[in-house]
C-alpha cells in the first residue's frame, strides 16, 4: 500500500488544521474498512489520514430534545446492539446496520463512513431517509445541518465541502405509533452489498396511516419514492399496495453491475417494496 501519514487529533481545531493542509491529499479515517482497500488499489491516494475516533462526540450515541444524535464514528455493531437504537423508535437504523457487511466489518465500519462513501447501496441510507435524519457537518467556520436527502449528490459524491467533516447524524423521533422495516435483497442472505434495499415506515395519521418509503441501490443515490408514499397514504389494501409497488418500479433508474442487471433490479424493486410494506403492516397490526 502507498505510504501515508496518520494523525489522531483529539480536538476539532487540530482536526480542521490537518484536514485543510495545503498541497496534501487528506482523508478522514473512521472505520477504515473502505479506506484501506480503496487506498491499496490506488483509487484513493491520501498523503495524510486523519483518524476521527478521538474527536469529542464522534463515538457517542445521545438522546437530545431534537432526536437521537449518532456520532459519525459509531460502529455498525454498536448501532445493532445499542438499547436506544435497538428500541421502539429508531430500530429501523439497527435493522439496517445489522444488514450491512459481516460481523468483522460491522465491528469497525461506521455510520459516518457508510454515508460519506456515498455508495448508492449503503444500507444505512434508506433507513435514514425514511427517518428524515439530518447530517451534522462541521468545519472551522461552524456547524450546518443538511437533510440526508440532500447529502447524497451522486455515486461517491456528497454535499461535504473541502475542510468539512461529517460529525454525526441527528435523527428526529418518528411520529407516535410508527412502525418501520428494512428489507434487503442480495446474492447471499448476509454479507453482501444490496441488489435492492427498501425501507418503509408508517404512522397513524388522520384516521389512516402516513407512509415513507426509500429505495437503495436502484438509482445514482439512495432515494425516497414519493409517489408510492402518496398511494399508500390513501390506503393500504391490496390494490393500493400493488399500485405503490408500481410507483416504486417507476421511480427507480438502476444500472447493470456485477451483482445484478438493471432489468432484474427493477423487477425486484416491486417485490422487495411489497415485502417492506407488508412487514410494516404486520408490525402495525
Amino acid at each position: 500500500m502507498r505510504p501515508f501519514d496518520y494523525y489522531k487529533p483529539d480536538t476539532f481545531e487540530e482536526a480542521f488544521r490537518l484536514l485543510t493542509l495545503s498541497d496534501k491529499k487528506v482523508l478522514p479515517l473512521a472505520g477504515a474498512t473502505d479506506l484501506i482497500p480503496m487506498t491499496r488499489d490506488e483509487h484513493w491516494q491520501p498523503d495524510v489520514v486523519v483518524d476521527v475516533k478521538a474527536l469529542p462526540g464522534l463515538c457517542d450515541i445521545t438522546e437530545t430534545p431534537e432526536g437521537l444524535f449518532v456520532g459519525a464514528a459509531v460502529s455498525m455493531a454498536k448501532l445493532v446492539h445499542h438499547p436506544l437504537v435497538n428500541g421502539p423508535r429508531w430500530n429501523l437504523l439497527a435493522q439496517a446496520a445489522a444488514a450491512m457487511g459481516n460481523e468483522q466489518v460491522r465491528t469497525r465500519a461506521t455510520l459516518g463512513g457508510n454515508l460519506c462513501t456515498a455508495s448508492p447501496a449503503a444500507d444505512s441510507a434508506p433507513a435514514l431517509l425514511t427517518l428524515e435524519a439530518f447530517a451534522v457537518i462541521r468545519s472551522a467556520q461552524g456547524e450546518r445541518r443538511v437533510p440526508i436527502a440532500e447529502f447524497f449528490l451522486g455515486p461517491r459524491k456528497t454535499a461535504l465541502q473541502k475542510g468539512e467533516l461529517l460529525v454525526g447524524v441527528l435523527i428526529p423521533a418518528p411520529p407516535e405509533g410508527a412502525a418501520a422495516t428494512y428489507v434487503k435483497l442480495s446474492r447471499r442472505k448476509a454479507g453482501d452489498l444490496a441488489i435492492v434495499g427498501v425501507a418503509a415506515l408508517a404512522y397513524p395519521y388522520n384516521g389512516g396511516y402516513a407512509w415513507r418509503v426509500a429505495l437503495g441501490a436502484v438509482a445514482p443515490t439512495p432515494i425516497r419514492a414519493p409517489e408510492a408514499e402518496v398511494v399508500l397514504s390513501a390506503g393500504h389494501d391490496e390494490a393500493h399496495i400493488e399500485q405503490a409497488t408500481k410507483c416504486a418500479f417507476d421511480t427507480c433508474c438502476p444500472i447493470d453491475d456485477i451483482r445484478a442487471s438493471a432489468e432484474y433490479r427493477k423487477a425486484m424493486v416491486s417485490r422487495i417494496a411489497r415485502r417492506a410494506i407488508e412487514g410494516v403492516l404486520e408490525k402495525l397490526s
Partner: protein
Amino acid sequence: MLHEITLNINDETYPVIVKSHYTLARVLREQLGLTGTKIGCENGECGACTVLFDGAPVNSCLVLAVEANGHSIETVEGLSKGGDLHPLQKAFVEHNAVQCGFCTSGMLMSSKALLARNPHPTEDEVREALVGNLCRCTGYIRIVDAVLDASC
C-alpha cells in the same frame, strides 16, 4: 511516518514501531512473527485474517496497526494454554473441520467471539456469525458441527 505503539496480544505486551500505512495483519505476521493469522482477500470478504480486537472480531487486514495502539488483541496463537488445545480447536480436530487450513484461524477466532457472547448458539446463529469467514474446501458442515459441539 513512524509510530511507537504498544500492542497487547494474547495477554502479552509488545512495544513495536510501525509505519502509518501498515495493517495490523502485516505487523502481526511480519514484525511479530505471529503467522497463524492469514491474509486472504484483503477486502473484508474472506475473514482469514480475523483476530479479536477488545474481544470483538475484526479483519486485521482492514485495521491499521497504529489504530490498535493500547488495545487488546487475540490471535489464534493465544487459544491453546499450557500445551492444551482450546475446546474449539479440539472440536475442529474431532470433526475434521480443517481441510487446507487457510481459513481455520479466522474461523476459530470468529467462533470464539460468538461463544463468548452466546454460549449456546443455534445452527443458524453459528452460520450467521461465520458469514464473514469463507471456506472453499469443507462446505462448512463440519465447521458448523464443530462449533456446535464446542458450545455444548
